[in-house]
Structure formats: C-alpha cells, structure tokens
C-alpha cells in the first residue's frame, strides 16, 4: 500500500518520531544520568505519593474481601476466580470488545474526514474559523450532550420521529430500553463523532505534510481519494498511532454513558467492565471485587498499549 518512492523522498524532520531514537545531543558528562533523575524526581515524588500509593492501596483490595471501611480480609485469587464464573462480568467483556472494535474507528475516522475537509478549504481564515467551532464544545460538561441523546433515543424522540417521517416507521424502537438495541445506541451516540482533540491532532499531521509532495501529486494528476489513501493516511502515521493508543486507553474507560443513560440496563445489556466495577464497588459495596475487575482491566490495557508501542518501535520509518 505504501508509495515507496514518496516516503523515500521525505525530508528528515517530518519522519522523525518519538520512538525513532537518535543520538541525543547534550552536555557530555559522565554523571549526566544524575541530572536526568533529578529532572524526573519531582514528578516521581508527586506521582508516587498521590497516584501510585492510592492505586497500590486500592489494588491490595483486589485480593481481599473489602467493603471500603472495615479491614480487608485476604482472599488470594478468590475474586478473580469468581469473576470468570460471573455471567455479568463475562457479558461485560463482550460488550467492551464490541464497543472497542466499533468505537475506535468511530473516534478516528470522522475527525480525519473533517480534518481533510478543513485542510482543503481554500482560505486560512475559514480554516481557523472551523477549527475554532469544533473546539468550543469542550467548555461544556459532557453530560449535557448525553442528555440530548436521551431525547433523541426516547420512544417518542427525534430518531423515531425521523424514521416515521421518512417512511421507515417499522424501524422505530425504544432504543435504550430494548436490550437488543441499547448497546448499539450507546456506541452510536455522539454523532457525528468529531472529537476536538482527534480533529486537531490529525489536522496538524496533514499540515506537516511537505507542500512539495502534495504539489508533485497534483502535477501527476492524482485524484483526491487516491491522494488521501496514498499520501495523507500514511504520512500521518505518527498521529494515528498516538490516537489509537489513547483510544485503547479511553474507550474501555467510558463510564459516564452507561451510568447516566442506561445504568447498565436493560438487564445487563450495556454493562461494561468499568461500569460493572463501579456498580459492584459503589452500588453493592463490594470494593474488593470491583478492584479485582479494575486490576484485570489495567493489566489488559497495559498489555495492549505495550504491544502497540513495541510494534510501532519495530516499524521502520
């Protein structure tokens, strides 16, 4: 797929990535590593005291029977054994798998298309205006947007009204109350799925593509779609990787949507591991069990992230 000639012609700077290790120029000193440690020391202190200490405390709960108040009772791997016999937890794994497989493309492709659209606007001024318009929604808390989706999905809501109006009345549904459609409705929420952060990162990538390449493609008469496929997508690989990793980290952590709109229901149709973790810990007072779920989720995501980074590192630029 990759147009070899074009990549080879790239100037050095645009191909440089974090993981592409180069000789770092800096002061030459045999004790420079001490400086390195000193630089990260404040971070390590803060992170150790206020992030890792509570996290480790919490993770101890994963191996105990704990209600959050009374001293934990050590149960070894009991919580983990229980987890894989728990049909709700197993169901939640399926849900998060579906959510991730559908949700990651949804969080990446629409912003990319919009980034392309903005990038190909003629005037710098209108590019600026549109970028701004897509960023401003960041100032409002997310639940306002969720509420609008509740109104859209309601039995007499906008979606059903729309389906009725275009003659698809037979498709009308109680989207969030029907176990067959609830998960899909939650995943589909947020149309047109244009995340401000993703949009700007991808747009930035497009801007960094050297003009000469685009000009050369134009001279060769490359069409828009072929150019996007052959030049734009591969040239912003660094941005794709970053957003992909962040999506792997954030999609499974999406708690707010099931919490506010469905409470995991109907039945267990929209229970995801992170929601189940919340429900068992907060709703049912089973902190130990909740933390065991968290622990497993943490390990799984960490593994994915490491594999992803390793894979990226082994890729030649």
């Amino acid at each position, binding site marked *: 797929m990759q147009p070899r000639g074009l990549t080879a012609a790239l100037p050095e700077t645009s191909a440089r990535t974090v993981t592409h290790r180069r000789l770092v120029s800096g002061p030459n000193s045999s004790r420079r590593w001490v400086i390195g440690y000193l630089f990260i020391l404040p971070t390590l202190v803060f992170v150790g005291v206020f992030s890792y200490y509570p996290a480790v405390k919490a993770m101890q709960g994963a191996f105990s029977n704990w209600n959050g108040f009374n001293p934990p009772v050590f149960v070894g791997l009991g919580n983990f054994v229980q987890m894989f016999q728990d049909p709700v937890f197993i169901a939640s794994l399926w849900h998060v798998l579906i959510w991730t497989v559908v949700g990651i493309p949804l969080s990446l492709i629409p912003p990319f298309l919009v980034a392309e659209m903005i990038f190909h606007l003629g005037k710098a001024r209108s590019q600026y205006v549109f970028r701004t318009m897509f960023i401003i929604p960041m100032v409002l808390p997310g639940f306002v947007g969720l*509420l609008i989706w509740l109104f859209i999905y309601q039995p007499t809501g906008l979606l059903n009204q729309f389906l009725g109006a275009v003659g698809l009345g037979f498709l009308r549904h*109680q989207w969030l109350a029907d176990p067959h459609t609830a998960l899909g409705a939650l995943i589909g929420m947020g149309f047109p799925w244009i995340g401000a952060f993703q949009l700007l990162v991808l747009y930035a990538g497009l801007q960094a593509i050297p003009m000469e390449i685009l000009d050369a493609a134009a001279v060769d008469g490359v069409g828009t779609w072929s150019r996007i496929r052959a030049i734009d997508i591969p040239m912003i690989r660094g941005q794709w990787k970053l957003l992909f990793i962040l999506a792997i980290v954030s999609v499974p952590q999406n708690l707010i949507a099931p919490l506010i709109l469905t409470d995991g229901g109907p*039945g267990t149709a929209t229970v995801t591991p992170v929601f189940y973790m919340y429900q068992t810990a*907060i*709703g049912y*007072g089973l902190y130990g069990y909740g933390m065991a779920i968290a622990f497993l989720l943490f390990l799984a995501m960490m593994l994915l992230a490491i594999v992803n980074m390793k894979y990226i590192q082994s890729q030649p630029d």
Partner: protein
Amino acid sequence: MTIGSDDDYRKGDRFVMYRKITLAAACCMVLAGAGGLVQAKTAKIPAIHWKGTINFYAQSLTPVGPGIKQVSGERPLHALYDLSVQFNHLYPNVHIHFVNPAYNSSNQAVIANAAAGTLKDMMWNQYENYDFVFPQGIAYNLMPYFRQPNPYIPGNKHWIGVMNPSIVKETLAPGGQAYVVDGDWLAVNFFYNKTLFKKAGITTTPKTWAQLLQDCKRLKAHGITPGADRPSYDWWSRVFLGNYLGVPTLKKISSFSKSPGISEFDNAIAYYKGIINPQKNPRIMAWWPAMRQLYHYWNPNTTALPVNGSVPAGAPTGESLFAAGKVAMVFQGSWTPNAVKYTKGHAKFAVGSFPVPSLTGTSKYATKYNSSGDAGGPQAAFQFAISTPQADHAMNAGKFQAALDFLRFISTPQHDQMIVNEMGNMMPTFKGTTPIKAFRPLQTAMTKPWYQEDGGQYMTAEEYATIRSIFAEYVGGHISLKAAASQYSKAVATGFHQFVLAHHVNLAKY
C-alpha cells in the same frame, strides 16, 4: 399528652414558644447553679459536661440559618434551627452546626468519609443503607437508648414507647440494631390533575382497578396522557404482593424470625418455603400483567427511563410532566402537591389524590386485604443516625452523649410533629402526632398493621436491581411473561442463596 396541630408552627405561636423555652432554660440554669442535678418540673434533664459543636447533616430538613441559604424555589425551613437554639439555651456549651444540605451524601461519599473518619457527627441517610448497604459499624446502635427514658418527654419510661412500633421493627438491622431514629412516613398515592380529569369527563376517582384502566382509556381518548413515571417495582410490589398473599400469610412470614415485621430474614425463609418463590407460588408474578396494562397508558418516554440509577438530570419525569400539566396523574410520594406548588412556572390546576383502587379482578389471587397504603413507608427525611468514632474521628464518648441528647430532644412527639409538618411533605410518626390536614386521610396507612412485602429487596442489591430491570422490560413490552418469569426465578434464587450464606441463616431451624 397534648400536641398542637398547627400546620405551620411558626405562623402561630413561635414567639410564645421561644419565651416558654427561655424561661425553662433560665429555670434550669438557676437550678443547676444551685448545685445538684437539674430538675425540671416534670422531667429530669441530664447534665452535659462535654463542650463543643456537633455537626449535623439533616439533608432536606436542614433549616435556613447562619451560613445556609435557602435554595431558590424551596420553602425555607426553621424548625430544626429553632430547636437547636433551644437546646443551646439548655446547654450553653453545646452548639449544633447544620451542615450545608449540598453535602455529598451519596453512598460513595459516605463510605469514603467513613473510611477516612470524617463522617459528620449526626447524619441523615436511609435506614436501609445503614442496615444493609453501608459497612457495619459506621453508626451507633441506638437500641439500648430506645429502651431508656427520653428525658425530654415528661414522664417517659422508654423512648421507644413514643415511637410507632411497626416502624421501629421495620427499620431494624438483621442483628436487631437500630441505627436511625425514624420520625416520618412517606405516603405513596395517586395524585391527579383535577382539571384534566374534568376535561375527560371523569367525575369520581376510580374505586376499582378496572375503573382505573377505564379512566386511563378515557383520558387517552381525550388526547390527554393518563400518567407518567418510571416503572416502580418497589412500590407496586408492596401493594400487590401484600394483597395477593393476604394477611394470614404476611403474618406467617413476619413471624419466622424473632424480630417483628417482615425482615430480609423472614423473606429468605419464606422463599425457601416456597411462599415467595415465583416458581412455586403463582401469586408472586400474577400481578405483572395488570401493571403492564396500566403502564401501557403511561408516557412511554418516562417508562423507558433506567430504573436502577437516578433519572438523568433534566429528563422529563412523572413529576415534571405532572407539574407542567401534561399528564393527568402520577403514582408518587406525598411530596407531590408541594413539588407542584413550588415549581416555578407550573401549570395552574388543583391537585387531588386517591388511593390505589381495589385490586379485585386484577387476577384470581386478589384478596380483600387493603394494601393501598403499603407502598409508602418510613423511608423519608427524618432518619437520623450518630456516627461512631471509627467513622468520625471527632466523635468521642462525651460528644456522643451530647449528640444523643440532642437527638432525644428533637425526637419527641411534639418536636417530630413540628419538624415534619413544617416541611409538609411527609407525615410524623411518633405516637400522638397529627399530620397536616391534607395527609390526615392517609394516616391510617401507618397506624393499621402494615406489611412491606417486596419479595426480597435486600437479599443482594445486585439481584434486586436485576428484578427491577426485568419488571421494567416486561411492562415495557420487551420480553414475554415467560421470559420474565425465568429470569426473575434465577435472580431471586441467586439473591437468597447469597443472603443465606452471608448472614448465616440456619434454614433447618424453621
């Protein structure tokens, strides 16, 4: 004992009362100064040697006062503040500080604060949370003090003697502990829009279930949405299960465990005896079709809301649609008339109310027992506990004594009535109290023997949430009765199995 029946005590004799109290306080101080124990005319007021401030989170009964502003649109409350001032007159060294009602009292926050030892000294929360959801040991067991005299009630021998006995029984934890003093009753009833009923030509409120459905049909034919709300398994299960099981069976269930009232112990035993097992007793789910028929007339957007968590802020609820004059009735808590009254921009209409009509004819299992009041209960605003030193590092023996005395001071029939009636959303429950005029017809619900049989609400929170959800799916038309029955059976079996294990219920004994 005579108790004034002013609906708004502040309107009438507030200043008279102040004067009386000041006088009494002065008396006490003179006597105290004279040495020896404080002797009032009729009661012995205990001495408090502890000095300091008690922090009291009174939730919706929080009065306005220094530092606490009234939230817009609400009616400002004064009763607890006035009582705290009176208490301070009696004990100048003891101050009561009311915590801002915005205090985060979610389960998450209570558990976190308990773990850190930062709970408030006196706290509102649902007794069920103290009994079943929160870790044990975060609040004092008040039962020993229930058996002692309340010195602020003249001639009182046992504090428990002025409380409603069935409520005390209902609110006890499985081990017989009493974590809260429960002083009010939330009645649950149909509230209706008189204007809309008239518009549909309905002149009398329904007396039977068939009439209720008939009225719904009529309202709908006139283009009026008959009702709105989330499917409420909690309330309707009590109404129907109580009626379908009938008093002899309810009595039998309540007698399984030593503690009176229907506790989760009783339910567990009843379940294993087959009485409330949906697979063995056809009564247990026989009422679901009747509810499906009723909810068929309800606003579909509200019946589709999630039933376990809270309603997403801003989503139309039964109450908001009712206040807007857009639905003809709601089956709701007794706060509804005030909720309409104090909602800005509410529609102009008169609010009427009627009890759950006769269930005769809803299925062949309907009995004569009138369970219409059983949906309501003591799960309301006057439920106060005292935190233990383990959960509240500022607590100690001396402070506990002072807090206990303040709790005794406000938990007298006279003060219960004053506090609860001022808000006007619930009924006071202490013996000899009278609710506000509007609620007097509902008072029988808590004075007659009542049974909260919900089929097992606290076996595990998890399985109960599942049952609520199955009920909502069934009445919403998403699953068949057969599918619902099989899921329900599975959930209730798991729930009671875990309950029996967790609480070491010896089934062989019964």
